[in-house]
């Protein structure tokens, strides 16, 4: 049995994952992200409490997408994201998504999920919507 989820098994209303994920905004992860994207802005620091780039979201969203157990080869089609406040290194976020739609267009299987990231005290940090083309079932 494949460890990947089949498209037909994805349902609107599914929580991803069933229990929220935890993501620490680690300074090394931030440093690697900034280096990989060539971002040398002096907005950010590497010590706990320093401001982290909001688009570190693109790292924690991958954790969320992995939790779907989709097959390899999927494509990120659309992305909406709104930031509600800055984030800081050392913070721990709680992440969860929910499947809100699935449809086939031009023979491509799409999955839409809304997500939220919250701080330890429940404050909303970011929210948005990810639209993906599901990878070929294994």
């Amino acid at each position, binding site marked *: 049995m494949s460890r990947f989820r089949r498209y037909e098994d994805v349902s609107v209303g599914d929580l991803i994952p069933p229990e929220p994920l935890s993501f620490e905004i680690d300074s090394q992860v931030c440093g690697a992200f900034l*280096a*990989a*994207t060539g971002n040398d802005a002096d*907005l950010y*620091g590497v010590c706990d409490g320093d*401001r982290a780039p909001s688009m570190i979201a693109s790292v924690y969203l*991958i954790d969320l997408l992995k939790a779907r157990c989709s097959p390899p080869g999927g494509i990120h089609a659309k992305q909406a994201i709104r930031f509600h406040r800055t984030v800081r290194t050392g913070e721990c976020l709680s992440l969860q998504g929910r499947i809100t739609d699935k449809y086939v267009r031009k023979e491509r299987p799409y999955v839409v999920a809304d997500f939220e990231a919250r701080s330890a005290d429940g404050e909303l940090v970011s929210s948005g919507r990810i639209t993906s083309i599901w990878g070929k079932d294994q």
Partner: protein
Amino acid sequence: MTVATGAGARSSDAEKFDLAAPLPVMSRQVTQSVIDAYAAASGDRNPIHVDPEFAAAGPFGRTIAHGLMTLAYVSEMLNRWTGGAFDENGEIDIAFVAPVFAGDQVDVTGELEEICDREGRRVARIRLVCKAGDRQILAGHAYQPTNAENK
């Protein structure tokens, strides 16, 4: 363009930005090494990005860059324009309309279309202009609360 605040600045320290200033143009040269470095940093090792053999059998015939990597460039451009305010309360809503390949130069900027109301906020609506050579790679908008909205 407003000068960015220093490392560790409180979020409320983001300086007011000049809505009338043109958005900066940012360029990045994308290579397979850049894609691989992003894959390692983000944890997204989808073979369509990093495995040429796997990607050769896929819809694009070769590896493509991560869409979220392009979005990171957009985010950096918007933060440079707003002096960091984008990190605080900015918003992006886009579609990835064409792939970015190794060897592409990606150019990212935006054009202020209007000041409008959106979900109870007064925002600058910015049409994002993102190209790899002549190809449009991303379509959509960013929404940045105006200074009066920035807490």
